[in-house]
Structures are given as structure tokens and as C-alpha cells.
């Protein structure tokens, strides 16, 4: 395949205490795919993302973003954490949260200015939340909060997007809005990696998939590897999913 490798993970092993959460993961994610990471609870899906992003320290292994260590490629990467990972009663507005996406390129001390504000407003518009820019974030619905998080990542204008369960607890309208944005990102040549729970929608939303359960079970194009065999291997039970092709 002539495509470039956006993310390369080698021998990655992560443990919180004694038991490994991720065991010897090798993974290559080609540029421009929209990839789902699926697996049961406790399979290490979030851990995998967090280790790639340097939030967690692995016991062994290495991660490369376009062939270089993550620390040197931060500007190419954006992250959408799980919505539940922050306190939404924090005293701040929707626009302010989205502005945080510009902090990385600003670096230490420098304050966001007009240019950053404009970028944040544009991102808010993309996710359909411009009308809520001045809203205190606790007064947003779950789906709206998720869109704010998405807008914050969009502001980073990255090449690779990591998203931790962006469809968690959102209604159908928001889910469609989010998936449309993800598809747009892929169309623009970006790589999008999503921790995903709803197996039914995998073939419809994604073109690439990684099965994970502490070890990597399989990774590749959805049409080749999204089958009962891999699902059973990952979920441990005889899993049947009907794929309409």
C-alpha cells in the first residue's frame, strides 16, 4: 500500500498495577482512515488512546506519529476526551472551552487574541453551536457538551484526531451531526480514530476498525475484517452481527 502511516504503535504494554491493561500492541493506522476501536469494557480502548497521546506512561513500547515521536508532532494531533472526564459546572462559557483548543499553538503565557477567537467561533459554527457561545457550560445538554468538545479539537486544526466515545449519551440528532463532521474530516484527508461502543453502526460510520481486548485482535478495513469471527474473538461470546452490504 502506498498510503502513509499516520500512527504507528510498537510493542506497547501498559499496566496500572500488576495486571497489564494493554499487552504488546502493534498497530499501524494508515493516513486518511476513519477508524473505530472496539472491544468490551476494560479492553483498554481509552488506555490505548491515552498512551498514544502521552497522558499515560507505557511500561514498554513506542509510538510514532508520521514517523516521529509524539512530543515532536503534537501540533498534528487533537484529542476529544470522554465527556464525563471533566466537571461541567466549571465557571466558564462554551466559547471559552473551544478557545482552549488554541492554547497549544499559543504556548506558555501568550494570551489568545482576535485570530484565536475567530477560529473558535468558526469551529462553533461547524458543530452548530454558534448560538450557544456565551452559554455557561453546565447549562448545555449532554449532546451540546459533546459538540463543544468536538469544536475544541477542530480548532486545533490537526491531521490526526483521537476521540474517546464521542457518541456516548448523545441523542440521534447529535450523533448524525457528529458523524457528518467526522466524515468531512476524512474527506479533507485527516485521520480520525474513535473509541466506539455501538457495534451495529460500525459498518455504516467507519471504513477501518481495530478489535481490542488487552491484546490487539485484528485491524484493517471494515469490509474485510468486521465479521463474526473477530467479534467472537474480541467479546469472548458467540457474537453475531448482521452486516448489510
Amino acid at each position, binding site marked *: 500500500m502506498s498510503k502513509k502511516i499516520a500512527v504507528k504503535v510498537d510493542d506497547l504494554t501498559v499496566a496500572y498495577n500488576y495486571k497489564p491493561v494493554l499487552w504488546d500492541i502493534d498497530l499501524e493506522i494508515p493516513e486518511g482512515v476513519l477508524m473505530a476501536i472496539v472491544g468490551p469494557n476494560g479492553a483498554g480502548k481509552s488506555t490505548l488512546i491515552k498512551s498514544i*497521546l502521552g*497522558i499515560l506512561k507505557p511500561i514498554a513500547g513506542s509510538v510514532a506519529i508520521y514517523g516521529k515521536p509524539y512530543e515532536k508532532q503534537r501540533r498534528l494531533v487533537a484529542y476529544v476526551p470522554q465527556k464525563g*472526564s471533566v*466537571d461541567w459546572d*466549571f*465557571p466558564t462559557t462554551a466559547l471559552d472551552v473551544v478557545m482552549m483548543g488554541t*492554547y*497549544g499553538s*499559543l504556548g506558555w*503565557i501568550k494570551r489568545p487574541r482576535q485570530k484565536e477567537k475567530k477560529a473558535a467561533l468558526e469551529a462553533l459554527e461547524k458543530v452548530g453551536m454558534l448560538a450557544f457561545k456565551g452559554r455557561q457550560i453546565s447549562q448545555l445538554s449532554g449532546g451540546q457538551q459533546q459538540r463543544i468538545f468536538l469544536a475544541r479539537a477542530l480548532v486545533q486544526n490537526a491531521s490526526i484526531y483521537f476521540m474517546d466515545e464521542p457518541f456516548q449519551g448523545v441523542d440521534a440528532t447529535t450523533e448524525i451531526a457528529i458523524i457528518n463532521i467526522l466524515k468531512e474530516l476524512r474527506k479533507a484527508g485527516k485521520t480520525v480514530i474513535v473509541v466506539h461502543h455501538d457495534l451495529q453502526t460500525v459498518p455504516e460510520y467507519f471504513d477501518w476498525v481495530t478489535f481490542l481486548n488487552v491484546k490487539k485482535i485484528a485491524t484493517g478495513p471494515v469490509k474485510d475484517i468486521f465479521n463474526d469471527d473477530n467479534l467472537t474473538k474480541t467479546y469472548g461470546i458467540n457474537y453475531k452481527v448482521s452486516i448489510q452490504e
Partner: protein
Amino acid sequence: MDIQDYFSLVFSDYTLRTITLGTAILGAVTGMLGSFAVLRKQSLLGDAISHAALPGIAIAFLITGAKDSNTLLLGALVSGLIGTFWIRGIVKKTHLKSDTALGLILSLFFGFGMLLLTFIQKQPNANQAGLDKYLFGQAATLVESDVWLMAIVTGLCLFVLLLFWKEFKILLFDADYTKTLGFNTKIIDILITSFIVLAIVLGLQTVGVVLMSAMLLAPAAAARQWTNSLSTMVFLAAVFGAFSGVFGTAISASQTNLSTGPVIVLVASVFVFFSFVFSPSRGLLFKHIRVIKNRRDLELHKTLSFMYHIAETHDNISHPHAIKLLNNFQGYTKSTLQKLVEKDYVKLEGKMWRLTETGFNTAANLYTKQSTDDE
């Protein structure tokens, strides 16, 4: 001396001026930093740090034999910092939750400190008396140099806060995300925590080990009620803290035998109480009023829509109906009917009622209006 005397004396009397300035500055800096502690859900950290400072005071006295406040506070700073880093260590290295770690360090250090204090008191040394003032604080012992020290630390803290405002804010909101942007979160974290420790140590002489955490929490908790902006919250907390200091000093100075530290804390608590009850958006009072109002509106709407369904069956919407009909409907009371009349939705004629045009249209649009309000 009454309160009026106090305010006329505060500018001329050296002691009063020093104490008032000292408590005001202390209140401002602890309020400011307290906002960060509260938002990080580390409200108890202040309590643990202040208690952890006690053995440091005792040890500093045992080593130097002097009661110079700067030396003792240096001891407090060192043991406060040790306590803080032990807490962090415990949380990181063991399965214990942070409240357990805080409680553990708090009681361990405080117990050790009390042990040393009693040991010192038994010493045949005339110099030993008065160390226990650090337990509950004694604002009267503040001298000008203490106030200068407070002012310098506060100025420094303000400078750092303004300089790293953006970094502090994003770390408070979303630490993991901050890390992915390339910020060294450890440095930001240590910076905040160190300033909190410093502010607490500065307050020990005035407010004391036991009550110090209230200085950190009360102004911040009160400020949070009034605003949804971080900068306003920090500013308000500083103002509340400073006023608690001034009013507390004024009250304690105008009465005999009222210790300053506890009075300051009580004044701060009044701010908290007032804010919890009367804040327009988050206060209990207005929340309750809103709940009652919403319920009334709903009752009104329910009654109106009930009438609408009756009126609907007639060709003429304003056809009169008996009030008796409404008695079978649960939400209906005389006052709701009266309200509907006031709003010109309904007209009463003897024992009959009829919907007006506006009433009919409002009722017809009730549900659709609600669903558009949602998004």
C-alpha cells in the same frame, strides 16, 4: 470601643492599622487561591496543609529556641510542603483515595505537632509560652514586617496568576487535555499548590492551624454562587476574603475578649450563607421561587388546555361553559381561574366561563411552543 470608634481609629492607630491591613491582605490572597482549591475539588487540602504545618513550628522553636515569627513560619512552610507532597505521594502510589490520604496526613502531623507543643510547654524555659497561639491564631501579634511579607507574597501570587492565567484555567478544567497540548502540567500544578501552602502558612499567625482552611474555602464558595466566570470568581473571592478580614478585625476590636481569627472566619461564613441563599442564579431562595413559579405556570397551562379541549368541541370557541365542569379537573383552583382571567385568556360571566381568542390560540400553541424552547 464600638465599631464607629474603630473606623475612626483605623487610619491613625498603628496597631489597628497593621492588623486590619494584615487580615485584609490575608483574606484577599487566601480567597484568590481558595478558588483554585475549590474548583480542583481539593477543598480539604488547605485543612491538611495547615495542620501539617504545626510540627514545623514546634521543631523550628526547638532548634532555634527563638519565637521570631519568621523563623517559626519557615518551619511551618517546610513541614506544610512535606505534608503536601506526602499526600500526593500516597494518592499516587497506593490505592487510597485522596480524602483518606488528606485525613491521614492531617491527623498524623497534627498529632505529632500537639505532642511537641506539650513537650515544649513542660520545658523549664520562660520563652516557651505563647506557641499555642498558632493553634487558633492571634492577630494582635501582627507587626508591620509581617504585613509587608504578606503584601509581597500576595503581589507575587497575583503576578504569577496573571502571567499563567490561561495555563491555570485549562489545567483546572481538563488536566489530561492540557497534557496533550504540550504543557507540563506538573509545573503548573506545583506552582498552584506551592502558593496555596505559602498563603496558608502566612495565615497561621492570624487565624491559626485549626481555622485556616475556612479562609481558603469560604470566600471561594461564596464567590462561586454569584458568577459563571472564573476571573470574576477569583476577583470576588479576593474581595469577600478582604472584607471578612476587615469586618472581622473591626468586630473583634470593638468588643473585649473576642479573638480575631474566629470572628474573621464567622464573617466569612456569613458571606457564604448569604450567597447560598440569595444568589440570583444559584441561590436556594430564587431556586425555590423559580420552582414554585414553574409549578404555577404548569398548573395554569394544564387548566387552560383542559378548557381548550372543551371549547374545541364547539364551532364557536367562545361558547360559554359551566364552571362546574372544571371541578372534575385536578389542577384547577379558583386562583388559577382568576389568573387566566387576568391574562385575558378567559372571560367569566356568572357561573359560566368562555375562552377568548387569545386564550384559545395560546392553548393551541402550548405544546409546540415548549418543544421549540427545548433546543
